[in-house]
């Protein structure tokens, strides 16, 4: 059944690619980018400046039509799949929890588009987007988030712990900052193995203050590990405003203290994120060591759950710790229509083709919901298995 879900996914991706009747020649994007205010890196920390790193549009220009369309498709998948979760949950009877990523899609897609399939990512509690962007199967993810026996983790993990090790996903992780540390550890393992893979660790703005980030960053810098840390600064640590708990405004500045290049990019601009990530990935592959990239963005929903949201409406309003006006301002910077406008302007997509992609993704999401609903629940006694590789632990009730 799992295999079937994956096949459906592959077919969907293929059919979108097939709707490309005439190849569009490669473009020079720079003019188009500046016209629409995309592709710009806000800020490089001291070390990045010293390294005289190429800053803008070095890599964007080489993106193929197919890659650009895939990026748009992946962003939509994240948006519509998570919106479906929200709607299902608000209807009632939803077997699970969720920390929604909506609004931050450009980061996951920008970063993962710069990776190879055999590269690794380590994800967070807000990680659905990372998994989808790394190739995660919508069906198996939705089955897992509703704790079905055929989900990615057989129902053991749920939303916070979805993993597909075969795609190089070292787990979503419910403990803030852990992804930085395990990612850096995996990067050390890559050096021991002697391959040219890289690891991306995702973390929110709250993930860099605990000791895990320090341990990861210092080791990655000292040993020049192929490690890229993505700080998704959505401006809130649960409900605490970032600026109320950090004295520095640009968190990537911290990178300098470890001897790492830091970048600050517009996290709602998928091309800016891609450009920074691609630079970091190429550098890491060549043995140039780690990079920290801070992506400024905004969380459309509450930290957790669906408070303040409605079926058929985007965003969570009336949350108390933020103003609705602030949310509306950020929703106006929605990364998806912004990217679509750009792709249409650049003739990578037509409006009609873009609509077709929306329809295909909508259908894939509906299929995922139907797939998950039809899946069996786990056997109760399976909770005693997978503690160790072999056997089951005793129940101790008799």
């Amino acid at each position, binding site marked *: 059944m799992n295999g079937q879900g994956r096949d459906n996914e592959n077919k969907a991706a293929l059919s979108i690619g097939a709707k490309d009747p005439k190849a569009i020649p490669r473009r020079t994007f720079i003019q188009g980018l500046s016209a629409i205010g995309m592709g710009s890196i806000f800020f490089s920390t001291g070390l990045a400046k010293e390294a005289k790193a190429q800053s803008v549009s070095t890599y964007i220009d080489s993106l193929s039509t197919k890659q650009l369309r895939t990026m748009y498709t992946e962003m939509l998948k994240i948006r519509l799949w998570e919106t479906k979760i929200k709607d299902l949950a608000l209807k009632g009877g939803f077997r699970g929890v969720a920390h929604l990523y909506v609004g931050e899609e450009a980061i996951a897609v920008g970063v993962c588009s710069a990776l190879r399939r055999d590269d*690794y990512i*380590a994800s967070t509690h807000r990680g659905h987007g990372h998994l989808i962007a790394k190739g995660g199967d919508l069906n198996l993810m939705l089955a897992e988030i509703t704790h079905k026996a055929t*989900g*990615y*983790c*057989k*129902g*053991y*993990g749920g939303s916070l*712990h979805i*993993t*597909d*090790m075969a795609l190089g996903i*070292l*787990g979503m*992780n*419910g*403990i803030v900052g*852990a992804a930085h*540390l*395990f*990612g*850096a*550890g*995996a*990067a*050390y*393992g*890559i*050096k*021991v*193995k002697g391959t040219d893979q890289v690891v991306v660790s995702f973390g929110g703005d709250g993930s860099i203050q605990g*000791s*895990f980030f*320090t*341990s*990861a960053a*210092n*080791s990655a810098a*000292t*040993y020049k590990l192929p490690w890229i840390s993505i700080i998704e600064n959505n401006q809130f640590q649960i409900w605490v405003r970032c600026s109320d708990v950090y004295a520095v405004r640009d968190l990537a500045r911290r990178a300098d203290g470890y001897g790492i290049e830091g970048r600050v990019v517009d996290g709602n601009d998928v091309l800016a994120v891609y450009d920074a990530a691609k630079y970091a990935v190429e550098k890491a592959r060549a043995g140039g060591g780690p990079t920290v990239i801070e992506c400024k963005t905004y969380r459309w929903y509450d930290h957790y759950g669906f408070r303040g949201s409605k079926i058929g409406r985007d965003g969570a309003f009336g949350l108390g710790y933020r103003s609705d006006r602030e949310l509306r301002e950020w929703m106006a910077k929605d990364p998806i229509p912004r990217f679509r406008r750009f792709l249409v302007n650049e003739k990578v997509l037509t409006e009609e083709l873009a609509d077709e992609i929306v329809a295909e993704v909508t259908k894939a999401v509906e299929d995922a919901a139907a797939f998950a609903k039809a899946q069996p629940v786990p056997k109760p006694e399976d909770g005693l*298995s*997978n*503690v*160790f*590789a072999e056997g089951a*632990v*005793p129940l101790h009730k008799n």
Partner: protein
Amino acid sequence: MPKSMSYAILEAIQGEMRRDKLLTLLYEYQQPATRWANRSIDLEKEFGRWRARFSAIDENWIVGGALGMSMIGVRAIAHIPSMTTLIPYELMFNHAGKLRHMTGGQAAFPMVLWADMQGRSPFQAGQHADAGLESCYARLAGLKVVIPSNPYDAKGLMISAIRDVDPVVFCQYPVPTSGPDVPDEPYTIPIGQAVVRTQGKDITIVGYARQTLEIAKAVEQLKQRGISAEFIDPRTLAPLEQVMVTIIKSVKKTGKLLTSDDGSYSFCNCTEIIARVAEAVPGVTFKRLAFPDAPPPGAPEMINYMRVSATDIVAAAEKMVRG
């Protein structure tokens, strides 16, 4: 002179590093180099710095790094000094012990946390003379915990720990050289199996690591006083199921269980062993000897009074047997 504990452990790791070309050791200042007779081991020299890597004083890196690399199939050993054995506790509690289960069996951590442990030594005080921390790890689901009492067991348990696909905490208390000679060749001691050190019929005495020296002395003294004690060394503290089979079989025979532990009285690891025997065998007489619920003082007069000695074990056993 037989091989020391540290030589036996490094010999185990050396053999496994030759066998598994990716196996990597992360450590702080405890250099993986030692001598015995006319031989020496130097892991950094033999395998290079990438595979035997000293770190900053950063236990979260040593353990977190080892966990991360083990996730991608690079087996790793994380060596942690005794006074900071619990700094990486969160990593073992919330990640090492849980990830296999949380991911439905997809993710594995084939790593070893090699934790140096202290043994209630005088002149150290508080932070550098604590003991019993193995019970903190043994209570965590998903972890295996082994605790050797002599160099022979140390080598066999370390090799088993390295080859295990689940995370293993290897607790090394400073134990003087004793027990059987350590063969040069690799060998394994199965995780999860206790060993009966001395056969007896009047009372069962359970203890591990440094307490095995006190118990061994006590067993001899009890013998001279006409009491036949059966002495069991659990060697593994988690999972405990098979260990308990050995202990329960013994207690069914003797009807009496005395435990001796360098850990603190409350929640020492032997408390768990007593509870499991109490559930399984009716009518048993129990006594738990352990360090008082106090930090270890530095002055020898105080700490030697507080820790469990062979004399304490003899007195408790005599009282239990003769009433």
